[in-house]
């Protein structure tokens, strides 16, 4: 397949999304068919690209003498694309039901679909500037989704999101330019900085790395730049689930991975002072996120803080700058996407069916919504890291990578990982316990009008649960696919 | 002392410039502001003219035949005079435009006080918002 196909797969949902408000469907059915057709077509196309035409390149435009807008399909990006291509159709299906009571659904689905193409753009970018382009567009296309219900709270959240994201992107951009002015290349390649580094400009590259790390760290909700994520939970749940647990935040993590392995290189970072600094930040965020999640009583905010913590797992793994760190990070990127979206979907289902938003209000809910809470239990256990569910595998891989790396900062991260595992169990399992064991003096008064969600919601939920279990037990094909990314990041492998 | 008197026009120009600038900035009455502007411009012209004046020389328009010699070093510098003339033209036209503007403002607001005008505008703004 030639390079144009990459452009098509990125542009299809973007154009489709732009057209949606213009077409202005009045009938729900028509809109659903239209959106679903575009999303599924894109997913299928993206999956076929990932599997069949790795290495395809497309240089779209020479923006300046040093900056190209270019795309390439490689394994690292392919994994991210795989994740979103699996989850987008499921979320779309879920969103059809969830958004039924909202206004301006054409606008919503327009931006929702556009974001798909933009996320794929992030995944398939061949250099940092192209990624920056899509990264910024992702901020802009998801902003209307956060402020969708138009309430004051939503607007404040939107502004917060905007401030954090733009600041991060700008900082990252400054880092990129700094790399460029000192002879580095923004192209993603195996060599990384290579011979551009000398004794004299090493400090400079260190600074540039920190700019990019903290810049992209904003979307990856790194402490202290995480503040936007919990507040962004005011968005409709499909948005929180898909974008703020998968697409947007993972694009931040993904970008850090790109910087670590493809713009810089593992040799440069391994053992350097910036790596240590970054590792400590990630380790602290892991603990901070879980503790905050534990203290939080708002259902979606609790999950959002949990995301904060888990994203730093991935960051931590990537920052180890070893082959096993890379694969572990990618594995957790995949698995966390599945688990967290399932948890959010349940939270959304609860909100949709009963309007309850606090975890303290869920006494006995398992009786009314057995499927949802069954899935919730599975996903919780997976996120806690109970074998043989998928979360265990990725955490195990991260921890093993840390042990293997063996530096003091890696051990700090390991400790953070373990502390976080305990808190994860606490903040998730208490919900499960409350839902299944309401305790004495409970007469089910809060369940009067609560029923199980319909198939639009339960089908994605059950699919996710099945994926969580199956991928946990039989990860062979996936790990093999992921380890394919090694050869593109490490010259020797 | 001679040094001081030698630079007298420059000092005068500086003082006048200061006076003009302060009036321009501080006076509330628009006409006074315009007067201040004129003082300021005049001070610059004075400064320039003083620069062009060289002691014991004559204007460069006097021909050699009339004086009996042709030593160019006895001429004053003609360029500053030209500049001052141009400057006066500019200053006059600016003053004219300003004065016409003041007339229009007075028709509109019935006052020459700039603060008052701004106050009236603010009030209009607020009514607009209601």
């Amino acid at each position, binding site marked *: 397949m030639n390079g144009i196909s990459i452009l098509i797969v990125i542009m299809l949902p973007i154009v489709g999304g732009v057209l949606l408000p213009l077409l202005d469907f009045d009938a729900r059915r028509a809109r659903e068919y239209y959106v679903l057709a575009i999303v599924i077509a894109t997913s299928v196309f993206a999956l076929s690209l990932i599997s069949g035409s790795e290495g395809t390149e497309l240089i779209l435009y020479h*923006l*300046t003498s040093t900056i190209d807008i270019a795309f390439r399909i490689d394994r690292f990006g392919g994994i991210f694309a795989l994740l979103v291509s699996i989850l987008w159709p499921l979320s779309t299906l879920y969103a059809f039901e969830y958004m039924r009571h909202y206004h301006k659904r054409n606008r919503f689905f327009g931006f929702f679909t556009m974001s798909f193409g933009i996320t794929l753009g992030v995944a398939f970018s061949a250099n940092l500037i192209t990624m920056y382009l899509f990264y910024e567009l992702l901020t802009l296309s998801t902003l209307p989704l956060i402020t969708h219900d138009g309430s004051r709270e939503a607007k404040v959240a939107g502004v917060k999101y905007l401030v954090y994201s733009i*600041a991060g992107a700008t900082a990252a951009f400054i880092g990129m330019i700094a790399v460029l002015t000192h002879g580095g290349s923004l192209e993603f390649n195996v060599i990384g900085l290579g011979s551009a580094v000398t004794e004299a400009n090493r400090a400079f590259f260190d600074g540039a790395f920190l700019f990019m790390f903290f810049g992209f760290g904003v979307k990856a909700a790194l402490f202290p730049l995480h503040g936007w994520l919990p507040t962004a939970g005011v968005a409709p749940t499909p948005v929180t689930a898909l974008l703020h647990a998968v697409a947007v935040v993972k694009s931040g993590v993904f970008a850090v991975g790109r910087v670590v392995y493809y713009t810089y290189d593992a040799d440069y970072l391994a053992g350097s002072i910036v790596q240590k600094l970054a590792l400590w930040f990630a380790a602290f965020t892991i603990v901070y996120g879980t503790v905050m999640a534990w203290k939080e009583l708002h259902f979606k905010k609790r999950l959002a803080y949990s995301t904060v913590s888990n994203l730093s797992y991935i960051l931590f793994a990537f920052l180890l700058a070893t082959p096993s760190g890379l694969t572990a990070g990618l594995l957790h990127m995949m698995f966390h996407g599945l688990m967290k979206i399932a948890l959010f979907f349940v939270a959304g289902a609860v909100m949709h069916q009963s309007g309850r938003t606090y975890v303290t209000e869920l006494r006995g809910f398992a009786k009314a919504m057995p499927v949802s809470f069954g899935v919730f239990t599975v996903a919780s256990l997976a996120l806690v890291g109970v074998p043989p569910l998928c979360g265990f595998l990725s955490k195990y891989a991260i921890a093993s990578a840390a042990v293997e790396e063996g530096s003091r900062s890696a051990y700090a991260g390991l400790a953070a990982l373990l502390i976080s595992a305990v808190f994860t169990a606490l903040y998730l399992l208490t919900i499960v316990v409350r839902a299944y064991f309401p305790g004495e003096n409970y007469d089910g008064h809060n369940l009067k009008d609560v029923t199980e969600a319909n198939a639009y919601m339960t089908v994605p939920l059950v699919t996710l649960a099945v994926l969580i279990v199956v991928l946990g037990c039989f990860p062979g094909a996936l790990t093999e696919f992921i380890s394919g990314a090694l050869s593109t990041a490490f010259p020797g492998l | 002392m001679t040094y001081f008197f030698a630079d007298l026009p420059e000092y005068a120009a500086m003082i006048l410039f200061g006076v003009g600038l302060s009036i321009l900035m501080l006076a509330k009455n628009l006409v006074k502001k315009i007067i201040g502007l004129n003082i300021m*411009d005049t001070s610059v012209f004075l400064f320039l003219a003083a620069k062009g004046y060289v002691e014991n020389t004559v204007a460069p328009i006097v021909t050699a035949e009339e004086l009996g010699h042709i030593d160019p070093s006895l001429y004053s510098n003609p*360029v500053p005079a030209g*500049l001052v003339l*141009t400057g006066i033209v500019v200053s006059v*036209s600016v003053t004219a435009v300003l004065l016409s503007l003041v007339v229009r403002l007075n028709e509109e607001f019935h006052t020459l006080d700039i603060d008052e005008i701004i106050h009236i505008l603010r009030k209009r703004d607020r009514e607009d918002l209601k």
Partner: protein
Amino acid sequence: MSLIPNIPAFSIILLMLCGIVCLVLPARWARHLADCAIALACAMSAVLLVAFMRGQEVFTYSMGEIGAPFGNELRAGPLEAAVATLFSVVTLLSILGGRAHLRADIGKKKVNLYYISVLFLLCSMLALVYTNDLFTAYVFVEINTITACGIVMSKEDGYTLAASMRYFIMSLIGSGLFLIAVSILYALTGHLLMSNIQEELAALYAQGQYRAPLQVAIALMGVGLSLKSALWPFSSWLPDAHSSASASSSAMLSGLVLKSFIFLLVKVFYRVVGVDIIRSHAILDLLLVFGILGMIMGSVNALFERDLKRMLAYSSIGQIGYIFCGIGLGTIAGVAAGIVQVAVHACTKAMLFCAAGGLMDASGGSKKFKDLEGAGRRDTYAGVAFIVGTLSMIGIPFFGGFITKLSLVTASVEVGGWRSTLAILAIIVSTILTAIYYINVTAIIFRGEEKTPTRASEKLREEWKKQMRLDTEYEFAIVLFIILNLAIGLQSDRLMDVIRAGLAVFG
């Protein structure tokens, strides 16, 4: 001898003559003549630019028969040609884009005067670009001031009168300071031609003489010109003047007039005072600091503004800060970044002011945010223009704003030291603020389902419909503005080449 060296003088004189002729023509013909003259100026500047790109040498052109050092000179190089082209094109598009408003805002009898002002304004700007003589520069600065106030106050309501009064006074203080600085430089060197002054100053400086007067002169120049180009904190006059004027006046004022003084400032620094002296001088640091403060304060003010055109005006203050930041860095890359920003901001802001005019038409003439809801849907061209403007201001690749940011960041990273740190921080903060208020306004103009003005009366609605049908000039201008913006974004290498080549032979 080719015609090329005559272009600068010819374009200036042409505009001036047409201005005079306009006085006696009927209003319609005056309009057509002005259009043609400006279009011709565009064409000539473009030809000059192309000539330079094909390898034309820098040349000076003596006015009249008296040669240097007494005569009056024009000097043209690639940079001058590029800036002249930019100024004429943007003037033309601004006139076209705001035409509908001009019809409404300006009385029948004043139409001639307006076009005369525009012609003289462009004439003075081109003269400021080309002239090699400081006193000529002063004269055209004053002409510029008068005509700029002229196009503001031609829309005769209380606001514009008061605003132009303030504008006038501030401008006059600025030009007064400029004049006295010119006098001091003349007293020091005995020259008025820029290149000659530089030689003389270099000699004086080498001997260590007259440091203090030189310092005073540089400071006065700096303050005077930054007053006129609305560097914060000398920018209090700007929001009123720019927001109350008619659409095309605002576009020209914000897009061009400020920039012509900045260009003059660059000229003074690098051609009159000279690179070596100016780099050893604190004035650049001052400009950097105030530029940075401007970037932030302008944006902060814009953030809290609930009036579309005032918001755009405050945004101009912020954007001017970028230019000064670039110049203040003191390197060639910095100045180049400043000049790129001149170009980008000229196109973008002029477009936004024209589009703002369109939005106001679509909302019953109000420029308050609360009345503008859904205006972007009613006037799609303006809506698209605001989206493009927003994307450009945030700095998305493919748009002009990205190139500004790219070159400014590159320049500040290269400089190093505290300047680097300050500039980078300021860029981050200001990008955030800019993004917020532009996205906010874009969201507002697309909000709301209704496709007709909500608050406008029936009559206004009828008028609006009529206008929407007729206004092809406006649509043409907006589309061209968007193309210009994209062209800068997409062909930035060429632009940068011209600017670098121009700066190399500038001093």
